[in-house]
């Protein structure tokens, strides 16, 4: 529990910090973040209000008038205003507008359309508090969005100014969760009047999802219309069709059943950390998209899941980010945030150290989810991510950029991960997980880490003179993001299909030349590697590299195939950037001979 024992600063009870730092955190600990996040939100809001001028509201009423309406609402119903101000997208709006005002981001839309979100927030607060009021709000993309309440459509308008009004219904039903549902709240634009009522087709209330299992409840708003729901800046509403809404509800019921029955304490922590889900269309199979932002406490973005199990995993994943995001507002984990980016096994790109910590924290939750399950796919995930977590946590333990809190977080997470029993897995699953882990690291290095130019020159001279390979240089070059990096998990996806969907894998085997069309990030030779025919895979990667000498995917594959054949491959898998650079500098050399020379298995031709 986070207790307010300090006169001026929030204090986290020691046992709660210990639990959170180990990657857990029960529902009560998580709920206390709503208190600390309110303090954070208020500071941001106050700074924004002090920065804005009345003129920046453009055709809308002055900023001060919108704020006064919020204060009137607070006087009538303080909880209603807290709920409104704490809506996650309000945090995104504050951050976006501060960035826009500070020149951190640019936007071609008139400033007042962003400023006017305050007026919409004021309208929602007033509606919830049951006030008699009228306030002008912006129309964007032909709609007026009232955050967390819903959307009024004005199909004949694109942008403009509408008016939200109510004669007040303070005494009607002050505890109603759906204000306006039976009241006379209206949104007007010219002669068009939209009532906040279920029977007005121009009003679309915000959809909600919920599930109850064994007395445990999860409930959240499915926000497909808020202007700031994409976590960065404005986006137009994209209301889901009824079939998609039904599918989300169906998946939630099944996912919640999995979570509650598998690990009730974690499930309750998930429910406490989530008030809003921003839906995205389905992503590619086995490759869900999800995100969160520390400025939007209790909100997550997620693509339509493949199935309930994936949704359950995503809920665990993103609520881990939500928890750590709130925690990093409170304490400092990284003393030097501007140091070089580092390897993150779950990303295509190099990450700042703080981002790696976020990923580690999320994947501790994810791996804890998978390791409790017994099907082949889950055992693959547990083996893969357990291996990857141990790799990065071992490196993090010696990173001097961590603060004392960061050192403690890493130590606690390391204890959690190394304290897990070795997950049971058959030989094939273990092989595929080890290969996937080595594969991702090798591709990542080949893409983002440059080979030292002097070493490449020396190696070319040695090759041309028939000498031995120069010593492998120390790793001193910081990664530089190659923005072309995509789908580094291609072979891992093939492994998942191999383990969980034999029919689909058989179909892929039937047309190997088309495998990349179905699974981006793969090569035909990968099919041989996954099925254990390393000799065929080796020839496939070699042939690919003859025509595409810089292919990180093929270089990593070549290393994996050599390793599977029991041939030396460590220098290829741990330092693939060297072989890649050397092969490019020796355009006539056979790639496999270069690889063997690199690993000490052969002399140059």
């Amino acid at each position, binding site marked *: 529990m986070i207790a307010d*024992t300090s006169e001026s600063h929030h204090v986290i009870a020691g046992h709660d910090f210990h639990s959170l730092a180990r990657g857990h955190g029960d529902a009560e600990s998580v709920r206390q973040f709503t208190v600390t996040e309110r303090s954070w939100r*208020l500071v941001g809001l106050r700074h924004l209000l002090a920065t804005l001028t009345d003129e920046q509201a453009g055709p809308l009423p002055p900023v001060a008038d919108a704020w006064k309406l919020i204060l009137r609402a607070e*006087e009538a119903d303080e909880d209603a205003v807290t709920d409104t101000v704490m809506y996650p997208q309000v945090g995104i709006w504050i*951050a976006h507008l501060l960035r826009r005002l500070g020149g951190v981001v640019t936007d071609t839309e008139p400033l007042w359309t962003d400023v006017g979100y305050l007026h919409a927030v004021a309208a929602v607060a007033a509606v919830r508090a049951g006030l008699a009021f009228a306030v002008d709000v912006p129309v964007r993309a032909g709609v007026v969005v009232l955050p967390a309440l819903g959307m009024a459509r004005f199909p004949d308008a694109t942008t403009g100014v509408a008016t939200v009004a109510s004669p007040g219904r303070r005494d009607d039903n002050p505890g109603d969760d759906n204000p306006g549902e039976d009241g006379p709240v209206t949104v007007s634009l010219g002669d068009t009047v939209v009532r906040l009522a279920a029977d007005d087709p121009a009003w679309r209330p915000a959809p909600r999802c919920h599930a109850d299992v064994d007395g445990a409840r999860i409930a959240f708003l499915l926000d497909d219309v808020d202007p700031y729901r994409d976590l960065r800046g404005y986006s137009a509403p994209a209301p889901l069709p009824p079939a998609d809404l039904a599918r989300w509800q169906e998946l939630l019921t099944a996912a919640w059943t999995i979570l509650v029955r598998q690990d009730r304490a974690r499930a309750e922590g998930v429910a406490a950390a989530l008030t809003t889900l921003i839906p995205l269309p389905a992503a590619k199979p086995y490759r869900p998209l999800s*995100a969160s932002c520390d400025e939007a406490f209790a909100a997550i*973005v997620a693509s339509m899941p493949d199935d309930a199990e994936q949704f359950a995993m995503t809920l665990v994943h993103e609520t881990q980010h939500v928890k750590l995001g709130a925690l990093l507002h409170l304490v400092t984990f990284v003393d030097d945030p501007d140091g070089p980016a580092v390897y993150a096994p779950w990303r295509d790109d190099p990450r700042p150290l703080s981002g790696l910590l976020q990923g580690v924290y999320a994947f501790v939750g994810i791996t804890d989810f998978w390791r409790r399950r017994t099907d082949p796919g889950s055992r693959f995930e547990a083996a893969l991510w357990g291996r990857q977590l141990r790799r990065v946590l071992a490196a993090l333990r010696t990173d001097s950029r961590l603060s004392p*809190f960061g050192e403690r977080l890493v130590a606690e997470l390391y204890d959690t991960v190394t304290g897990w029993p070795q997950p049971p897995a058959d030989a094939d699953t273990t092989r595929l997980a080890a290969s996937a882990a080595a594969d991702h690291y090798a591709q990542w290095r080949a893409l983002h880490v440059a080979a030292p130019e002097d070493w490449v020159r020396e190696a070319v001279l040695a090759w041309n003179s028939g000498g031995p390979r120069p010593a492998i240089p120390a790793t001193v070059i910081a990664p530089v993001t190659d923005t072309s990096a995509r789908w580094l998990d291609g072979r891992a996806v093939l492994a998942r299909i191999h383990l969980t969907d034999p029919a689909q894998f058989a179909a892929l085997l039937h047309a190997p030349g088309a495998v990349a069309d179905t699974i981006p990030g793969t090569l035909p030779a990968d099919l041989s590697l996954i099925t254990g025919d390393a000799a065929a895979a080796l020839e496939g990667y070699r042939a690919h590299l003859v025509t595409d000498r810089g292919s990180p995917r093929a270089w990593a594959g070549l290393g994996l195939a050599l390793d599977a054949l029991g041939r030396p491959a460590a220098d290829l898998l741990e330092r693939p950037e060297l072989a890649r650079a050397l092969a490019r500098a020796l355009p006539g050399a056979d790639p496999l001979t270069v690889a063997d020379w690199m690993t000490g298995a052969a002399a140059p031709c």
Partner: protein
Amino acid sequence: MMPQTADVQTEVQDLSAMKLADLQHQDPARFSGTLRRLLSRVEQPSRSISGYNPQRLD
């Protein structure tokens, strides 16, 4: 290593008892520490977003 059971003093001012109506009457210096932390995150938007390959959202 820090002791595991000690309470953690955070760097965020506790405004849990403060109403919005009082917010603008406060001395800004009271919030300076928290505001500095907040603005340091606002100025680096790419560091605020986490998730599973969110770069693929683009």
